[in-house]
C-alpha cells in the first residue's frame, strides 16, 4: 500500500487549476495553427489568428485564457494500492479548487443550488469523477469547462435500428444547432453506448483525449475523421462568422450497452479546450 498525503492532492489540484486556465494544451494550440494554415476564408483565418494571439498573451502574462474559468471538472484515477491520508479525498480536491481559483485570480462561477442560485464564492464543489484502477499511482486531471459550450451539449437514447447513420446524424445536428453559441471552432466529445448516466460521462472523458490521438479502434477513428469532415462542411466557421474551421476535432469513446439501446451523448467544448494533468 502506497501512502499519499492529502496535502499533496490539494497542492496538485491547486496548481493544475491555474495551469489549465492559463496555458492551452499543446495539441489544441497545434491544431488551431494547422487549421489556420488550411483555412481558405480570410475572415475565418483572421479569427483563428486572434485565438493564437490570445493564447500567447495568457501564457506569457499568466492570465486566464477565457473569463469563464469554468466548472472545475476533476478526474481521478486512483490506484487500488494507494492510501490517501490526512483528509477525505473529495475534501482535498475541493480545497485544491478553492486555493487554485483564489490564487490564480480565476472567476468563481458555481452556485450552491441550481434553483436558489447563491454563489459558493470559491468555485467549489468540483465536478468530480473517480475511477479505481490497478496500481499504486494517483492520476489527477483538471479540465475547467465553460458553460457556453456545455449548454449546447445533447443526449439521446436512440433505438438500435438508428445504427451508425443515426449516431452520426445526431452528432452533426448537435453542432449545427449549436451554431455560433459555443465559441467555435469547437471540440466535439462523443459518448456511444453504456447507460443514460454513463454515456454522458463518456462524452466528457472523450474531451480529455489529445486531438492528435485518434480512437485506437480503426473503426471509430474512421468515424471520428468522417464526422470532422461533415462538421467542417457546415460552413459555421470560427465564431460562427462563416468558414471551414467549425471543429478542431471529434473524439469518440464507446462502452458496451443493452441489446435494446443505443445511447449517444455529445459534449461540446469551445476552442479553449483546457486540461492539465499530473501523476502522483
Amino acid at each position: 500500500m502506497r501512502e499519499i498525503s492529502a496535502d499533496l492532492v490539494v497542492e496538485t489540484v491547486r496548481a493544475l487549476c491555474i495551469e489549465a486556465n492559463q496555458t492551452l494544451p499543446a495539441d489544441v494550440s497545434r491544431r488551431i495553427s494547422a487549421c489556420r494554415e488550411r483555412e481558405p476564408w480570410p475572415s475565418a483565418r483572421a479569427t483563428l489568428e486572434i485565438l493564437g494571439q490570445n493564447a500567447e498573451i495568457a501564457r506569457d502574462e499568466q492570465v486566464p485564457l477565457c473569463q469563464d474559468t469554468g466548472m472545475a471538472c476533476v478526474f481521478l484515477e486512483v490506484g487500488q494500492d494507494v492510501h490517501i491520508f490526512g483528509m477525505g479525498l473529495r475534501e482535498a480536491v475541493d480545497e485544491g479548487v478553492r486555493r487554485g481559483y483564489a490564487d490564480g485570480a480565476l472567476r468563481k462561477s458555481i452556485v450552491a443550488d441550481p434553483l436558489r442560485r447563491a454563489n459558493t464564492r470559491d468555485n467549489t464543489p468540483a465536478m468530480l469523477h473517480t475511477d479505481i484502477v490497478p496500481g499504486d499511482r494517483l492520476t489527477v486531471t483538471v479540465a475547467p469547462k465553460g458553460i457556453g459550450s456545455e449548454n449546447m451539449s445533447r443526449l439521446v437514447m436512440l433505438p438500435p435500428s438508428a445504427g451508425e447513420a443515426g449516431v452520426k446524424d445526431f452528432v452533426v445536428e448537435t453542432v449545427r444547432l449549436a451554431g455560433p453559441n459555443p465559441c467555435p471552432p469547437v471540440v466535439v466529445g462523443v459518448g456511444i453506448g453504456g447507460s443514460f448516466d454513463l454515456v454522458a460521462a463518456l462524452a466528457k472523458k472523450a474531451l480529455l483525449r489529445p486531438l492528435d490521438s485518434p480512437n485506437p479502434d480503426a473503426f471509430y477513428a474512421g468515424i471520428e475523421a468522417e464526422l470532422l469532415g461533415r462538421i467542417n462542411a457546415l460552413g459555421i466557421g470560427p465564431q460562427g462568422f462563416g468558414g471551414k474551421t467549425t471543429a478542431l476535432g471529434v473524439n469518440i469513446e464507446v462502452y458496451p450497452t443493452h441489446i435494446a439501446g443505443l445511447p449517444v451523448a455529445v459534449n461540446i467544448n469551445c476552442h479553449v479546450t483546457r486540461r492539465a494533468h499530473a501523476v502522483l
Partner: protein
Amino acid sequence: MAETMGSDKKTCDAIRVTTPLTREAALALRAGDAVLISGTIYTARDAAHARLVELLDADKADRGDNADHGDSANRADRDARTGRAADAVCATEPTARFPFPIRDAILYYVGPTPAKPGQVIGSAGPTTSYRMDAYAPRLIELGLRGMIGKGRRSAQVVECMKRCGAVYFGAVGGAAALLSKHITASRVVCYEDLGAEAIHELRVEDFPATVVIDALGGDLYDIGVQNYLDFAAAHALAAPPPGALPAL
C-alpha cells in the same frame, strides 16, 4: 465571388465607433462590418439584467399601469405630429432610479475574472447573449443602442432592434486575455454583491468587434455562413465524398 471577397475584406478595414452611439451612427452599420469601439460602455449579464427589469417593473407599478400606456400614446401622437414616428415606440423614459444613462449606451455581456494586482480588469471576453434575450427588449425600448456578446439572438430581440434602431456586436468569444487589453478603466456602478456580475462602467479603446446583427435585421451568422458556403461550392471545398477521410 468578387462581392463575397469584398464583404469579407471588411475585417481589415475597421469602422470607428464611439459612445454615446447615436441612432444615426447605429443605422449606418451593417452586419459584417469590423468595428473598433472607444468610449464608455457598461457591463451586465444574467443577474444584473434581472435586477434592471425588476426595477423597471417596480417603477411601472408605482406609476400605475394606465399611466405608462397613456404616456406612450401621448408620445406617439406628439412624435407623429413632429415627424418622429419611427422613434415613438422606443421613447419610454427610464425611471429616475435607473443606475446608468441607458439612452445611446452600449452594454457588454461579460463577467470578467478578478483583476490581479496592477491590472485594470481580469480577462474579459463576451458571454453567450441568448440568456439576456428575455430582458433585452425592455432595455432597447429605453434607448439602449448597442450590445456586445456572442451567439444568436431571438426573433423578438431582432424585431425590437429593427423597431428602435439598435445594433448587436460580436466580440471574439474565448479571446478574453486579448480583449481585456482594450479596457483602460473599470469601476462598479451598482449591484456589487453580484461580484463578477455587478454592473461595471468600462473605458474601452479600440475594442475590436464585428457587427453581427444590424438595425435592419441583417445577421452575419446567416450571411457569413452562406457567403462561405457559396465560396466553398465555387472552389469545390464542399463535403468530401462519403467514406473519404479528410486530412484534418
